[in-house]
């Protein structure tokens, strides 16, 4: 198996796992209202976005080689 495919698979699988936990964290944080919780919500949302970006890269949709 060539190295690029391996990296793609690791990145894609990792993005799915991390993304799942990030969305779960966002869901659990949602009802909380303290200042640091509000910030955590923003951070988790952006983290999810990051996972989506990595996922599109792994599937070859986006990204410049």
């Amino acid at each position, binding site marked *: 198996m060539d190295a690029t495919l391996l990296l793609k698979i690791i*990145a894609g699988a*990792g993005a799915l796992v*991390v993304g799942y936990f990030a969305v779960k964290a966002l869901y659990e944080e949602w009802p909380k209202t303290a*200042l640091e919780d509000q910030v955590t919500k923003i951070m988790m949302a952006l*983290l999810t976005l*990051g*996972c989506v970006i990595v996922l599109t*890269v792994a599937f070859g949709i986006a*990204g410049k*080689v």
Partner: protein
Amino acid sequence: MATHALQVSDAEYQEVRSHRLLGFLFFLISDSILFCSFIFSYLYDRSASPMWPPAGVERPGLYLAAVNSIVLFGSGVTMHLAMEAWRHANRTRFTQYIIATIVLGIGFLSGQAYEYTHLHDTWWGSVFGASFFTLTGMHGFHVFIGVCFLITVLLQARNGVYDQNRYFGLTAATLYWHFVDVIWVALFFLFYVY
């Protein structure tokens, strides 16, 4: 400072904590402006350039960076889980997750070091190298500081500096780590995807 935290009344602690939290968030905003300024510089130079990256400059490897990003994003999740474990008074879990975060952070830095040594542009070679190494280097420095921060709070937590309700150092470390993660989302997009 944190050692004194256990000696003051609850009301006073809450007040001081709210000051520190707000001050820390302002610091993070200010820090993100620092990154924004360099990102603006990068986009400006890029839009003024006829081709990107400039002739003779190779882009850094995409898929290695993707894996490296997932390592860093994963550390963000473990950090969040560590904090949740602390809130639920599960000290063993907390220690495990925070060590995982530290390991992932160091892993990210190693990946970046590997990438740096295999890149065919220097930071004074072209404006691409200048922006790339400045921004990712600055971010890497933030990750390094974050790792030091995490090791410190881990040691402090083991030495009983924090208790169940007074743990601002942990909150600050968590927010800082999330911040470093989120900055990487922008940098990954700018240098590898866009």
